């Protein structure tokens, strides 16, 4: 019976202009979104290549200089390519890169705001991480038209457009009572209608989405990429499922088509637009992050004080780092570079509480967002899609923690050399950075949680709707 209704519904849907309008809209939106995302990935790759090529040119020049110096040429101490202080802070600074992930073109996410490459030197961690990409502020404010935008904003509207008059439309045409005069329940009829619509929409979105993605040249050779694609399909399907359940609840209330449409449009507005921005507002009020101006000033004050104390700090520094103390203490105490190390160390010690305040407030905000994300399925699915594209906060934090580790290693390496006054002869002995991806088990756990967050309410709301449908007034 169900199969026959489904077949029949499919015939009806095929004949309806709405489906083909939707195919046209979704098709062009998806094609544009994927193309746009791909362009962004190309831009990122270009930027990363430019940063790497700058590093290559700098190292080539450095090698040439080292050879000249080795051959006996004299240089000023501020430009000496052997000096570990010069190398670590400027000359040999290394670019740490977060490469775009294989599915980066699907969601731009935060990748246009958070830097995908930083120049690591012996400067403070904050200075190293403060770099930003040049990007139009207008575009940052507006957000991107990527595939995630299509899924998060447009797909629910299409679900609602396909579903809102499923029952009321037939009632208004007068065909509902005729259909239900046959040996079929309203529940079965509605189930068939939902199955047909959901399947059609899912096939369109996933088919067109994956089709365009493959045309952009994404390789599926890697198992991890294939797994991510599967999670992508599952998340989109679950999100659609939840919106069908929401639409069903609206339908089951038994109002007229126009009233149902208004109600569902209102729900869409609430869940996709209002809740996310209200939540943004709320977390900022509860855990306000101070203006970075406070950090600027704190650093300024700390560096004034540290510089004023100058050489005195050095003694304290040696007390803290006895392993660095050299035999020739007298000489070390007057060495400009060693004093600077001690001063910078002291500045960072003083500024650390202020920096910690920023990090704390931000992680409190993040914790609050995690807790209340469930209030909006749009937030849940957007986070998942960013995560799968490697353009979310998750992967960037992973990158930042690796950069921090590398920054520590870099500093240790040069600090020892500065204090011991060992010139660097071989550039290949410097520490190097390679980003290592998160293990896929972490991603898997997050994706399971996402699916549960979307599917549990979908099942509950769907069940509620079917219960209500039993009492649906078919006539009158």
């Amino acid at each position, binding site marked *: 019976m169900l199969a026959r209704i489904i077949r029949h519904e499919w015939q009806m849907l095929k004949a309806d202009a709405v489906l083909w309008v939707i195919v046209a809209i979704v098709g062009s939106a998806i094609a544009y979104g994927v193309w746009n995302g791909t362009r962004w990935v190309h831009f990122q790759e*270009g*930027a*990363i290549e430019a940063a790497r090529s*700058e590093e290559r040119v700098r190292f080539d020049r450095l090698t040439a200089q080292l050879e000249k110096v080795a051959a006996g040429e004299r240089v000023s101490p501020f430009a000496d390519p052997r000096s570990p202080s010069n190398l670590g802070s400027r000359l040999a600074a290394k670019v740490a890169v977060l490469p775009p992930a294989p599915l980066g073109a699907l969601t731009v996410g*935060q990748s246009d*705001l958070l*830097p995908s*490459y930083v120049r690591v030197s012996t400067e403070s961690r904050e200075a190293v991480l*403060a770099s*930003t*990409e*040049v*990007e*139009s*502020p*207008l*575009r940052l*404010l*507006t*957000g991107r038209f990527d595939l995630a935008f299509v899924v998060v*904003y*447009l797909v629910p*509207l299409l679900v609602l*457009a396909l579903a809102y008059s499923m029952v009321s439309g037939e009632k208004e045409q007068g065909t509902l009572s005729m259909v239900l005069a046959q040996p079929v329940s309203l529940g079965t009829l509605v189930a068939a209608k939902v199955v047909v619509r959901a399947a059609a929409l899912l096939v369109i979105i996933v088919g067109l989405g994956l089709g365009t993605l493959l045309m952009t040249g994404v390789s599926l050779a890697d198992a991890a990429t294939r797994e991510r694609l599967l999670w992508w399909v599952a998340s989109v399907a679950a999100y659609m499922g939840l919106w069908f359940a929401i639409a069903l609840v609206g339908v089951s209330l038994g109002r007229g088509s*126009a009233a149902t*449409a*208004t109600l569902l*449009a*209102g729900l869409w*507005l609430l869940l996709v*637009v*209002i809740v*996310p*921005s*209200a939540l*943004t*507002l709320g977390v*900022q009020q509860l855990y*306000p*992050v*101070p*203006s*970075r*101006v406070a*950090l*600027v*000033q704190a650093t*300024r*004050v700390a560096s*004034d004080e540290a510089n004023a104390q100058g050489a005195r700090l050095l003694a304290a520094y040696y007390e803290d780092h006895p392993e660095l103390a050299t035999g020739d203490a007298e000489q070390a105490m007057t060495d400009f570079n060693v004093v600077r190390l001690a001063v910078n160390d002291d500045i960072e010690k003083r500024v650390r509480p202020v920096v910690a305040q920023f990090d704390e407030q*931000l992680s409190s*905000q*993040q914790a609050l*967002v995690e807790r209340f994300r469930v209030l909006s399925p749009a*937030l849940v699915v*957007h*986070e998942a899609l*960013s995560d799968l594209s490697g353009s*979310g*906060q998750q992967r960037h934090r992973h990158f930042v923690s690796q950069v921090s580790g590398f920054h520590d290693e870099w500093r240790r390496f040069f600090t020892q050399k500065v204090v011991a006054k060992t010139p660097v002869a071989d550039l290949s002995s410097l520490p190097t950075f390679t980003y290592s991806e998160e293990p896929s088990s972490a991603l898997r756990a997050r994706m399971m949680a996402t699916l549960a967050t979307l599917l549990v309410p979908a099942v509950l709301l769907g069940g509620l709707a079917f219960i209500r449908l039993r009492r649906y007034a078919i006539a009158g």
Partner: protein
Amino acid sequence: MIGTIARKELTELSRDGRFRLLAAVILVLAVASTAAGWLQFTAVSRQHAEAQRETREQWLGQQEKNPHSAAHYGVYAFKPASHLSIVDTGLDPYLGVAVWLEAHRQSEMKFRPAQDRTAIQRFGELNGAEVLLVLVPLFILLVTFPVFAGEREQGTLRQLMSLGVAPRLLVAGKALGTLAAVALVIVPVSALAAVAMAWASADSYLAADVSRTVALGATCLVYFLVVTGVGLAVSAWAPSSRVALVTLLGFWFATSLVAPRIATDVAGSLHPTPNAAEFQRALDADLSDPEEARQRLARLQAETLTKYNVTSLDALPVAFSGLSLQSGEDHGNEVFDRHFGRLHDQFSNQARVYQWAGLASPLLAARSLSMALAGTDFEQHRHFAKAAEAYRRDIQRTLNDDIARNQRAGQPYLAGTELWSRVPDFTYDAPSIGWVLGRQATALTVLAGWLTLAGALALLATRRLSATLG
């Protein structure tokens, strides 16, 4: 007649539970966003004013040192928040707030507030402008879609038309009724926002701010009229209220969510900007070209020797180091003007494309105007950045002139408080409203065009109104 029609619309709306719910939601959001805007503004203004005072104290409190050391110590300039940023934060979250003014280098403004926020901010910030320009229009569309289409379905449209009311009056009355309903929501919120702004700036609410506030209000009003016109036209044209609703929701989605994204994409393609690494490389290449520096210094040396009619630098009555430092600054300034000028021109061009894109979506013209009037658009950011850079150049010139005058060859030269206080404190005056609107001519024209178009459409659709279904 208009009054009667308007009163009927308003009465009907005020009895509708959905209208009351929507109105309440918008009211709550407007109040919450204004309150948040106010808190944000007061916090930022206080922090920035305090920091600006501190940076001045630090500058004046420097111990005796060579002026060039002081130049490297530098000062900071902090961008003040404009009063109307309470209503529209515009681009501020995505633009830097502080810039370090030191020797040899023009820096970009640093620290975008957006980088200290969670990822969900990208769903959009809830501020007064967002409520006024995105949510209120949706509210208007939901109110207007059944105005003609609904009456037709109820059969009351036939009666109404049999009265022989001129279409002109009918449209005006319906529009007035709708706007009166909107006013019920907007007026209290606007009053609240005005009080908040006045309170936030008890002693410094400038005449310029008042005219900006009035202009911002007028922009919103015109935009509401455009949306009302479109809503009435579609309601009169649509065969059923269902079609009217779907069409208007589609219009809202396309103009409010899709058009801004496509507009910024097109703007970015027409006026592309380099990536940060590329920009920095090109800048550094022009800035520190050793051959250029050698030739420039040789030229400067020759010119100076000729000017003072001496044969060696030691015989000069001025310190050559001061002259060469300033020559480096002059060269740098020319390079910075070229590179930053090109980059910022591209951003300005992008903003101009955004104004033109108002032809496709009136929201873009209205938002462009709103950000400009609130002082949170790119042009005013650039205005501040330019003022800060001009101040940096003044500092460098003052210090280098002092070195040229007072430094003696072979002797250390230390300057003190007298020199530091000769550098004036940094003050910034925001541009006038005329300056702002002059850069928004396109948006103004486009919005006026939309107003005419929407009015004409509504009138036309009402003239051809059919009282019967199908």
